[in-house]
């Protein structure tokens, strides 16, 4: 027996029990190896289930565990820290043929993964109105202002009503009244100990994504305005910058503000 052959059998039920293993009573060691095979796969499925509880509720426990067992064999953890496990799950769900009948499933998985990342993200004090006020009255060109998101902040954009679906599974709202085909974007943030999931207008979602890519205030607002102007569900909307800033700041989604150093000096 080598470590490599033992390791290979853990995730491959079709492989035979490696040679060199034995039991005191002469019993077939395969049944004993099965304890480890089961520990590995079921503990990893449990880890996936912990991260994606609403995905599990949407498809049922039996389907979920069958899907997750395929996932853990294709994508076993590369990290010893299981809080990081599951980065590939949403993309896996996207390509998992038996789940095609639930087209929003992968985006709900993205939202749930974003929640776990937010839960364990670095702590930071939120940006205050005073800090923003000081920056805005500094005499610098406002459009170049850089807003830095809180480390826990992320946005999940979807063609489906993922925020409404997720909220309904927390007991908020009526699941049967949701039009799943209505696009929604989620803001995920953890200003204190609790992770928040909020519905963001398309323009505001684009705004946050632009900020996180390093865009200054003017550029981010321009990109947001473009997206807001697109007709969604028969209506076009304006991007309301003050309102978006107020929303982000009131939920602790921004952490700091500064002007880029390069040509302000």
């Amino acid at each position, binding site marked *: *027996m080598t*470590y490599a052959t*033992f390791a290979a059998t853990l995730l491959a039920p079709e492989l035979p029990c490696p040679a*060199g293993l034995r039991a*005191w009573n002469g019993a077939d060691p395969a049944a004993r190896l099965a304890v480890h095979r089961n520990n590995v796969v079921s503990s990893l499925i449990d880890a996936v289930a912990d991260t994606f509880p609403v995905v599990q509720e949407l498809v049922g426990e039996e389907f979920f565990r069958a899907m997750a067992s395929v996932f853990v064999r294709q994508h076993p953890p590369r990290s010893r*820290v*299981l809080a990081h496990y599951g980065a590939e799950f949403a993309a896996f769900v996207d390509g998992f043929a038996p789940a095609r009948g639930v087209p929003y499933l992968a985006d709900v998985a993205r939202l749930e993964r974003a929640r776990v990342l937010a839960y364990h993200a670095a*702590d930071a004090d939120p940006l205050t109105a005073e800090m923003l006020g000081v920056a805005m009255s500094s005499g610098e060109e406002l459009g170049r202002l850089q807003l830095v998101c809180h480390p826990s902040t992320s946005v999940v954009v979807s063609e489906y009503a993922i925020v409404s679906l997720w909220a309904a599974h927390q007991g908020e709202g009526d699941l049967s009244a949701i039009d799943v085909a209505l696009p929604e974007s989620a803001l995920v943030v953890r200003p204190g100990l609790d992770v928040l999931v909020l519905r963001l207008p398309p323009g505001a979602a684009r705004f946050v994504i632009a900020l996180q890519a390093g865009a200054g205030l003017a550029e981010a607002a321009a990109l947001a305005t473009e997206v807001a102007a697109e007709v969604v569900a028969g209506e076009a909307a304006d991007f309301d910058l003050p309102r978006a800033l107020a929303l982000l700041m009131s939920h602790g989604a921004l952490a700091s503000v500064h002007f880029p150093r390069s040509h302000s000096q």
Partner: protein
Amino acid sequence: MAAQLDNEQPARTVSTLSTLPGLRAKLAAPSGGCLPARSGVSLKPAHFRRVLETCPDIGFFEVHAENYMVAGGPFHHFLGRIREQHPLSLHGVGLSIGAEDPLDEAHLDRLDALIKRYEPASFSEHLAWSSHGEVFFNDLLPVPYERATLNRVCDHVDRVQERLHRQMLLENPSTYLEFEASTMDEASFLNEVIQRTGCGLLLDVNNVHVSCVNHGRDALAYISSLRLDAVGEIHLAGFATDRDAAGAPLLIDTHGSPVDEAVWSLYAAVLARTGPTPTLLERDNDLPSLATLLAEARHAEDLMLAAFESQGRGLCGGCS
């Protein structure tokens, strides 16, 4: 049994501890920054708030190191506050000391950072492997007991103690399989690692019971052959019962049920040899109320005191 209590209040039975407060104080006195010779319980997120609200009278809490290898958030928030109230044992489950590959230095760095942050009284890991190549299996896998493996485990334990600037405790495993390649028994293997590296022993009494039943061995004889002077901590936990291919009992180390009577008996036998020793009630699955865990911990402390009174010998305290 006390462990069946499921209300939220700690059991208030008449015990040697409550009748002899002076003795409790003696048990609680740690010597030199090690765990107190009392009982502790696993700290789980579901109990964070309850622990902070009630500040239970408990010897220590133990956490899995890997769960706290995250940047921020509630885990650090609560552990930091609970650490202000209680001694801490840091128990690793992912270092893979028994692996064929070299130790993961980045993981040692993460352990070092946690130890600097929380100053745990103890750091422990397993005689097992949990990774091979790039894959982490999230299970404690068995090692063959032969020279090449022994040398590698000793090298790894040396490196851990060097990197973390402290003695570590190595836990005896629960096993289901034996290797044809093994040339020595488990106790001899562990004793030699202890001898060569100076590490301590985390004696998991449930693992002793599980492994001895699974391999048709005498648990008391196994315990007698171990370096009990090196025991720095004891683990107690529950197991599940299955059958192997020949119909023989196969016990599975699940940490998902109360401590079995057979394990309590073995524990009392160990205490008669070691004296009071820091003891963790380890629970990871089917988590009961905090009160239930505390009642089990109290039972362990009663057994510790009984051993102390009958022996009148010095306290082990986990530091030798």
